[in-house]
């Protein structure tokens, strides 16, 4: 098994892309909470997709459940 151990600090996910977010978050986005800056800024487009998903769910529930006469 080539999976990294639990909590390993040198595994690829923890070394390839993510350190930049932590190191540059304050400098580039003035947001100490890295999760927020990552969610809404670095990967903001994912969050737009996420909002669209929940928008779809709301509309779908109205479409399915509302009774029509």
């Amino acid at each position, binding site marked *: 098994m080539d999976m990294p151990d639990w909590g390993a600090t040198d595994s690829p996910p923890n070394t390839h892309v993510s350190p930049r977010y932590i190191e540059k978050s304050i400098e580039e986005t003035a947001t100490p909470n890295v999760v927020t800056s990552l969610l809404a800024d670095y*990967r903001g487009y994912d969050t737009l997709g996420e909002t669209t998903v929940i928008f779809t769910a709301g509309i*779908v529930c109205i479409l399915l459940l509302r009774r029509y006469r």
Partner: protein
Amino acid sequence: MAEHSLILIIVIPLMASCFNILLGLFRRGFCYPLVIATLSLCVILSIFIMDGVINNGVIHYRLGGWAPPWGIEYVVDHLNAFVMTIISFISLFVAVYSKRSVEAELPGRTVYFYTVFLLLVTGLLGITVTGDVFNLYVFLEITSLAGYALIAIGRDKALLASFNYLIMGTIGACFYLLGVGYLYIATGSLNMADLGRLLPDLYHSKVVLVAFAFFAVGVAIKMALFPLHVWLPDAYTYAPSTVSALAASTMTKVGVYVMIRIMFTVFKPNFSAEMLPVTEILGWVASGAMIFGCILAIAQTDVKRMLSYILIAEVGYIVIGVSVTNRMGFTGALLHILFDAFMMACLFMVAGVVMHKTGKTSIHGFRQLHRRMPITMAAFTIAALSVIGVPPTAGFFSKWYLVLGAIYARKWIFAGMLLLSSLLAVVAFFRVIENIYFAPSCHAHDRVGQEGIVRDEAPLSMLVPLLTMAAGILILGFFSGKIVSAVIQFTVPEGF
């Protein structure tokens, strides 16, 4: 500006679906023109993007201004632009077609129907344009959620079919997400190009193998490849006819597109073809799909259900073209994506028209319909001949490439399977065509002549897209050489 059209093609349908609801609160009548306008804009934008790709090569777009491995990037090459153009064209014509059938089948729900319809198109376009594996998952879920709902509002046991589709589709999406997770463990990246650069050093790793297995199963569920197709026939049979036409012609094609992306961009062709027997397995599965789909299509009495099984066989054709891993086969697969989208849209539209006019979709409901609606039935016959692969129609050209690809790869069995499956499709379709043209009418014995049958053609808003599709099938075949030299030859991955 050319690169901004990449994002506009997603955002315009999304915002239009929002404004659609706001409009629908006040005037219901405005929704249909808004949908048509939006989708026409999408078609124009997609042609614009296609033009840009042909002239200037691959377009990159950085969302939020972040460089690729950190932010989300849009990469549009010839393959993306090709699939995107098909989707926007088909969805425009299906939207034009939808007017009367939605009014008849779903009274009172048109506003929300069109909103979800636009969201479905947004999701499909979003899948084709993105260059990030997780972003693809998000758009896959938008597509699926909209699809579940649109199928669920159909007739008979559509609810149960939709629930089964939801369970299967969620398993598929979760497997895809697990694949993303395993790739993320192995590389730490989510960008497709970056993954493609990092992965060749890791091909010996078992994590990457597991990731590939999860991707393959997840995507195979989404595109209804043979052993995992069980959700498809029920779902497409009972869905509203508009939804069947759109979903059958685009959703499975997008699944194939995702498979090609994963196999040849994220993983390199030599991994998929040489290090693992992936393409061998895919080839056998696909030939199983062709034979099985056609045989079950013969056994059906409901035309929409028969077409669903034919669709499973068509997915088999496309996958077999990919699996022979040579230039000819791949070209044939992409051409078949284009032609099959047209053929399936046309066939399901005809089924919808018959449903709209006579209320039946069983094969016996088609009896003597060439007297009632000759133009519609002519379109059906053209599309059916194209599925079979009779020369002047488009289906012949793509099948020619597919068979040549199988022969060049020295896989005689696959070439034989292709021909056998075409023969079975002949049987399946001639049962319907015989009913249309030659079978005596159900009412023949209680009427003296055939004069009782009046011409009762489909309404114009249904007829125009139908005829466009049929004309497309007739004309596109002759331009297949041009399409190959302009677009498809650039999509063939290196090493073929």
